[in-house]
């Protein structure tokens, strides 16, 4: 009988989906469609567990119960803060170094010629490959995590900022020149604001990368954080229900981080950069 309930749910949802797809109300379509598709997905997941008769892979219900366990044990909160702490500091440090460096590289031809080969040479090295060195230099604490996140975000931010500055249109450069804007004022009034929309885009990409890297780094070389939690759940008792629940937590936090950083795109000073693309 384990297959009957999910099959019925899928069938009902499929019918509702077909109805909703024809609905004239946009709000109904926007709200109903994703919900119904999610429910079909969950039911399909449950059905697959029943049909294969797996003893290890958790059903949606097992996963929901694992959530309860994670919250109850109060361990989740510590691991979430550990991961977020490393990502926040690594990201902020990388932005603080990468944005000014990118502005200089983009504006000064000589600086670009001198430093760009190094940046381009280091950029393709996966941050994961740095883990042994990170541990060697910083031990297995937060320092190594912050360092790894710094590395993973520094390159996208620097390269993105450099490209943004090099893309500044000639009319804007000439306008600035015409009105005698130079030196630091040129940076503040023209170069930085002209590059800002693209800088924000590179920050957004970098934050996404950071959230991917921290989980991997914690699985390999750290003793706390969401990545470590996944590894620990598997190693300590083949608790795949905890593994899947943690994965969902990682996904939700990733979405929240992206939503937060996207708010930067709504300021009047940068909206122009997204309007026509």
């Amino acid at each position: 009988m384990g297959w009957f309930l999910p099959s019925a749910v899928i069938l009902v949802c499929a019918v509702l989906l077909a109805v909703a797809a024809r609905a004239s109300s946009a709000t109904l379509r926007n709200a109903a469609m994703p919900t119904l598709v999610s429910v079909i997905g969950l039911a399909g997941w449950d059905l697959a567990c029943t049909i294969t008769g797996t003893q290890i892979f958790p059903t949606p219900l097992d996963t929901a119960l694992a959530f309860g366990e994670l919250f109850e044990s109060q361990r989740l909160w510590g691991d979430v803060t550990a991961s977020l702490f490393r990502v926040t500091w690594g990201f902020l440090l990388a932005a603080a170094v990468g944005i000014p460096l990118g502005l200089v590289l983009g504006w000064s031809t000589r600086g670009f010629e001198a430093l760009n080969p190094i940046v381009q040479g280091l950029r393709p090295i996966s941050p994961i490959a740095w883990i042994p060195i990170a541990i060697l230099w910083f031990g297995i604490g937060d320092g190594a995590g912050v360092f790894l996140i710094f590395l993973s975000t520094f390159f996208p931010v620097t390269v993105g900022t450099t490209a943004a500055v090099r893309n500044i249109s000639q009319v804007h450069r000439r306008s600035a020149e015409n009105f005698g804007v130079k030196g630091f004022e040129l940076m503040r009034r023209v170069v930085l604001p002209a590059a800002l929309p693209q800088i924000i885009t590179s920050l957004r990409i970098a934050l996404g990368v950071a959230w991917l890297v921290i989980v991997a780094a914690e699985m390999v070389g750290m003793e706390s954080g969401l990545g470590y939690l996944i590894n620990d759940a598997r190693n300590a008792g083949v608790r795949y229900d905890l593994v899947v629940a943690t994965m969902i937590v990682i996904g939700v936090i990733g979405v929240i981080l992206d939503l937060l950083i996207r708010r930067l795109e709504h300021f009047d000073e940068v909206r122009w950069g997204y309007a026509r693309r």
Partner: protein
Amino acid sequence: MNESTTKVAFRGVSKEFTKKQESLRVLEDIDLDVREGEFVCLLGPSGCGKSTLLNIVGGFERPTTGSVTIDGQEVRGTHPQRVFVFQEYGIFPWASVWDNVVLGIRHLPKAEQAQVAQGVIDLVGLSGFETSYPMELSGGMKQRVEVARALAVTPDVIYMDEPFGALDSLTRLTMRSELIRIWETRQPTILFVTHDVDEAVQLAERVVVFSARPGRIAGIVDVPMEHPRELASPEYAAIKRELYGLLGVTRAV
């Protein structure tokens, strides 16, 4: 105003660009005097070097040979009182109308800035849009912002490189009469590049016609008509005919 004062003088100006070891001559031996407060149109086909000439007098490029002087001084770079108005919106999209307009007068005390900026914003008809951003404005309004930004510095020369080229034809007509009104109010010297014969006849006191590459002066035509100009008059038609003749274009399509 002293009619005979020479403001801008071009003497034997030539320009070559080198690309992949091939040199391309875009301007040849340009001699031209522009009087103080005069409105001169540089008219020619695309690629005749008229924009290059404007970039040279504006200080963005150097001539290969020859020289350009303004008030007797050789042009060696840009000058904050000689302002360029670009075709593709040189105003800053990240700054409000107000912040764009005060760019050239940012060193003045705030109160003075405010007085000047409000004056030119009113003059170009943008009152009420001070806090708007360029992306919220139409093409014509953006170009008004750029004109206001130029006027704010009380320019003695304004360079306009097909400033209305991106606008629709009705807006372009309005902008032309506005420009004439502003020119009559402020009397700056204006060098205006266009490939549009009508635009040249409607605006200029003198039209300098360029031949195709390498650009040479094919002829200079006076437009001795008072503003507002009657576009259906025989005089207007005669001047147009003369310009088409100099451009080597047939008058019937």
